[in-house]
């Protein structure tokens, strides 16, 4: 059974079609990257999978369970985690607390009114593990707002990982990062446990081809091509959209 299954998804704002008959399937442990020019509807698609926007038509199934009409929080409890294109965490809270909330969301009991949140070993351990994976241990006590943009990006991913999701959606994880930070992010993504499925939106072709098992190209809301990296890179229509050379070179 596929981890994520998107069937004939459609979404339009008036006459602007942002998602058109999109079908997408992600196998357990698969790392799937979505590419496409600006305005191709990549983030709109992620928002529909995450539950931030409702599709007009079509179905979304996570692990065989239909979530098309479910609220984002219910999808998250079903094992979906995501980051956002722009950093949108809790600016005034510490790095530790940002990540700890991610762990609490799935493994805590939010309606426990008496046990201090900081005194839960299983939550603290998961928080610590996510911080360590992202190399953020030293910044744990820092207020998020005081971190560089690149470090905040890492915290985004750490907070999503703390919930140990089955499927992780990353919306442009390397946008705004320096080349060095981008390389570090690639290593982190490659090092993620294989039990976790990944759906990543990415512009940087170096990142795309170093992490993708499969690639889907979106163009004006519709799927232009989908398949293994080499196949997609060789696709004539994709090459047309990307004006040729860059994509094919990156594939080698």
């Amino acid at each position, binding site marked *: 059974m596929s981890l994520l299954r998107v069937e004939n998804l459609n979404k339009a704002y008036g006459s602007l079609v942002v998602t058109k008959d999109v079908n997408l399937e992600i196998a357990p442990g698969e790392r799937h990257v979505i590419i496409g020019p600006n305005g191709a509807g990549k983030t709109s698609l992620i928002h529909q999978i995450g539950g931030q926007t409702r599709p007009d038509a079509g179905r979304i199934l996570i692990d065989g369970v239909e979530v098309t009409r479910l609220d984002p929080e219910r999808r998250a409890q079903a094992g979906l985690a995501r980051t956002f294109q722009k950093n949108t965490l809790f600016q005034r*809270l510490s790095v530790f607390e940002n990540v700890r909330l991610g762990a609490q969301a799935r493994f805590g009991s939010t309606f426990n009114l*008496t046990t201090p949140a900081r005194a839960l070993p299983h939550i603290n351990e998961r928080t610590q593990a996510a911080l360590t994976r992202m190399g953020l241990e030293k910044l744990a006590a820092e207020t998020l707002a005081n971190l560089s943009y690149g470090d905040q990006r890492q915290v985004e991913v750490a907070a999503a990982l703390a919930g140990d999701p089955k499927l992780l959606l990353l919306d442009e994880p390397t946008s705004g990062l320096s080349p060095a930070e981008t390389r570090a992010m690639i290593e982190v993504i490659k090092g993620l446990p294989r039990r976790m499925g990944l759906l990543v939106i990415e512009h940087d072709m170096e990142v795309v081809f170093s992490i993708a098992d499969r690639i889907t190209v979106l163009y004006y809301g519709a799927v232009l091509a989908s398949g293994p990296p080499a196949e997609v890179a060789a696709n004539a229509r994709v090459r047309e959209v990307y004006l040729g050379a860059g994509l094919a070179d990156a594939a080698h």
Partner: protein
Amino acid sequence: MNPRVFEMRAAGRPDDPAKWLAALALAIVVPVFFAGSYALGLMTETLIFAIAAMSLDLLMGYGGLVSFGHAAFFGLGAYGTVLIAVKLGISAWISALCGVGIATLGAAAIGYFCVRMTGVAFLMLTLAFAQLIFSGAVKWRAIGGSDGIGGLVKPALFNSSLADPLAMYLFTLSVFALALFAMRRLVESQFGHALVGMRENETRMRAMGFATRRVRWLAFILAGFFAGIAGALYALYNGFISPDALSWGMSGMLLLMVVLGGAGSLVGPAIGAGVFLLMKHFVSSHTQHWLLVVGIIFVGCVMFFRQGVWGMLARRGGSAT
């Protein structure tokens, strides 16, 4: 301004039991030996409103939800206490418990609708519900209408009675201490942390998997519960209740106390209640325009001390150590 102040408040300061015990001892010893009945009354009133202001702080400071109708639950607690004691002729202790229950149920019912909103829509909706209850109380003759209703018999407490100012004070102080302790536990719990996360970024909290509307509803109910306790105490203290306790003026006063003291710190709004009532009693004995003075101080607070009296004290203390 150091943004981390916000989280320290959310997480609570590291507890130093000795400090709290010293404060409690002071609050017992000084009045017992030195205070006259006027001062005792003023302190009792302060503690009652401190509980109400702290309950509003749960919503405002921690949840980022500004309620302009919090008097409704204070008033429901107070009306419930007086009405049940007087109309059914049962012990004021039992009626006080019923009053708290009524306030809590009222918060559950009103909250069910209000928590669908945030921001200004939330504020307006809380105000609308509170005004609804207020006009009901004004119009309904059977519960005294605009004159209010009195005649609550002060209940006995050990060898004394709540009619004795000292007994009333000590009883109120015990309830205040318990309420403060409970609310601090609350804001430090996973629930409290989730509430703060929602204040910071609700979209994110939902994406993480938090059932934010349920969290908000429970916060609303808990705030109503503690406001109801304050209302019941107020009824026991005064033996009388009028629609004033339900008015938007009362809701506004609670808001002022929270902002004056410093939202998101619990202790701050308690201090805010004290500062406000002291001003009310002393400035109003010199000039009729005491609200003008309060207004100027309020504007000053909002402009220069965004974190209120307590935020200022805490920063001083923090930089000294």
